[in-house]
C-alpha cells in the first residue's frame, strides 16, 4: 500500500511544475472575476507549499510532518479566504492529479488510484479544515465573551441605590446571568433599592417578563427592593395584552422617575440649592 502512496508522491515530485501550472490555471479560470496580480502571487506560493508538503509527506517523521501541516494550515487561514474557495481549490488539485496520472498511463485500476490519491491528500486537507473551524470557533467564543461582559452591568449610583441597565434581547442564559449579577451586586454594594432599566430591551414577552419577575422576587428575598423602570408605551401594551401580571413589582416609565422613587424609599430626596446662576 505505502509503496503505491510513495509512488504517487514520486509522481507528484516528477511532474510538479506541470501539475502546479494546471492547477493555478484551472483555479484562476474558475475565479475569473477576482484576479489580481497580488492574489495570483499568493496563490502560486501557497500552491507550491502545498505540493511541497505532499512531496515531503513520505520523507518526514510523523510528528514533524504534522507540525508542518499545522503551520501551513494556519497560514491559509490567515489569508482569510472563504472556506468554500479552499475546498474547491483542494478538490481541483485532486482532480488534476488524477487526470495527470491517467494521462501518463500509470498502471493500475483507476478506482484504486483515486483512493490512493485521497490517502495522500486527506491528512493535509483535514488539517486545513480543522484549522478553519477552530479559527471560526475561536472568533465565536471571543464574541460570546465580549457579549457576556456587556450583558448585565450593575452600577451603584447613590448610597444603597444601584441601577442595572439592560440592552438587547434577553434569553434564558442571559436572564440567569442578570439574576446572578443583580443579587451579587445587591449584597456587594449593600443596596436597598435596585432599578432594572429595560429601556433598551426591544421585546418583552412572557418569558422575559417571567425572568424579570423572578429576579425581582429573588431580590426581595435577599433583602432589597427592586423597581422596574424604562417601560415604553409599546412594552406596556404588550405586557397588558399578554396578560402578564406585574402588579407585585413597582414600575416607572423612566429611569429618572425610578431614581426619585428610590430616593424616596430610602428617605432622601434631591433638592435644588437655590437660584441657578
Amino acid at each position, binding site marked *: 500500500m505505502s509503496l503505491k502512496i510513495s509512488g504517487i508522491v514520486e509522481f507528484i515530485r516528477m511532474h510538479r511544475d506541470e501539475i502546479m501550472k494546471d492547477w493555478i490555471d484551472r483555479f484562476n479560470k474558475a475565479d475569473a472575476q477576482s484576479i489580481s496580480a497580488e492574489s495570483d502571487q499568493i496563490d502560486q506560493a501557497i500552491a507550491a507549499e502545498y505540493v511541497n508538503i505532499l512531496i515531503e509527506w513520505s520523507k518526514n517523521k510523523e510528528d514533524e510532518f504534522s507540525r508542518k501541516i499545522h503551520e501551513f494550515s494556519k497560514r491559509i487561514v490567515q489569508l482569510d479566504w472563504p472556506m468554500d474557495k479552499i475546498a474547491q481549490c483542494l478538490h481541483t488539485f485532486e482532480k488534476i492529479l488524477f487526470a495527470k496520472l491517467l494521462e501518463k498511463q500509470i498502471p493500475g485500476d483507476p478506482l484504486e488510484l483515486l483512493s490512493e490519491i485521497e490517502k495522500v491528500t486527506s491528512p493535509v486537507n483535514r488539517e486545513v479544515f480543522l484549522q478553519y473551524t477552530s479559527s471560526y470557533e475561536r472568533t465565536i467564543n471571543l464574541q460570546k465573551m465580549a457579549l457576556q461582559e456587556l450583558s448585565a452591568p450593575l452600577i451603584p449610583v447613590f448610597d444603597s441605590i444601584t441601577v442595572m441597565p439592560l440592552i438587547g434581547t434577553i434569553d434564558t442564559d442571559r436572564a440567569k446571568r442578570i*439574576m446572578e449579577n443583580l443579587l451579587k451586586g445587591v449584597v456587594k454594594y449593600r443596596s436597598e433599592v435596585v432599578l432594572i432599566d429595560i429601556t433598551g430591551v426591544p421585546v418583552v414577552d412572557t418569558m422575559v417578563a417571567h425572568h424579570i419577575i423572578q429576579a425581582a422576587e429573588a431580590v426581595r428575598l435577599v433583602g432589597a427592593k427592586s423597581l422596574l423602570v424604562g417601560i415604553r408605551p409599546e412594552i406596556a401594551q404588550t405586557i397588558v395584552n399578554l396578560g402578564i401580571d406585574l402588579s407585585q413589582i413597582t414600575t416607572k416609565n423612566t429611569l429618572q422617575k425610578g431614581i426619585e422613587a428610590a430616593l424616596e424609599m430610602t428617605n432622601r430626596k434631591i433638592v435644588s440649592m437655590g437660584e441657578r446662576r
Partner: protein
Amino acid sequence: MMKTSKIPILKLYNNLLISIQWELDDKTAMQFQEDLLKKIHETGATGVVIDLTSVDVIDSFIAKILGDCVNMSKLMGATVVLTGIQPAVAITLIELGIELEDIHTALDLEKGLELLKELED
C-alpha cells in the same frame, strides 16, 4: 443517628435574634420551630430576626418550616424578618417556586433590626 443541635435564640430588648450558622437538617429545623415559639411565648417578644448569612443551601422542607415559623410567630404577635439570604439561596428558592410571599427580608442583621423598628412605628 445524628444528635440534634439546638440553635441559640438571643433576646435583645423586645426582639429575638437567631443566627443560623450551619446547614439546617430537618430535625434541627423542627426543634428550632418549637423553641422559637416557646421563647416568644416566654418573653413576649414583638420582633424576630433570623439571620441566614452562613446558610448556603436551603431545601424546600427547610423553606416551608421557615415560612411556617413566620406565620406562627405572626399569630403570636411577633413580626419575623429573614436577613442575609445568600444570592445562591435566593436563586434556588425562586427556581424551586418557593416565593416566601409576605415575608419581610433585609440585607443583614443591622438592616433587619431597623426594619423591625420601622414596622413597629
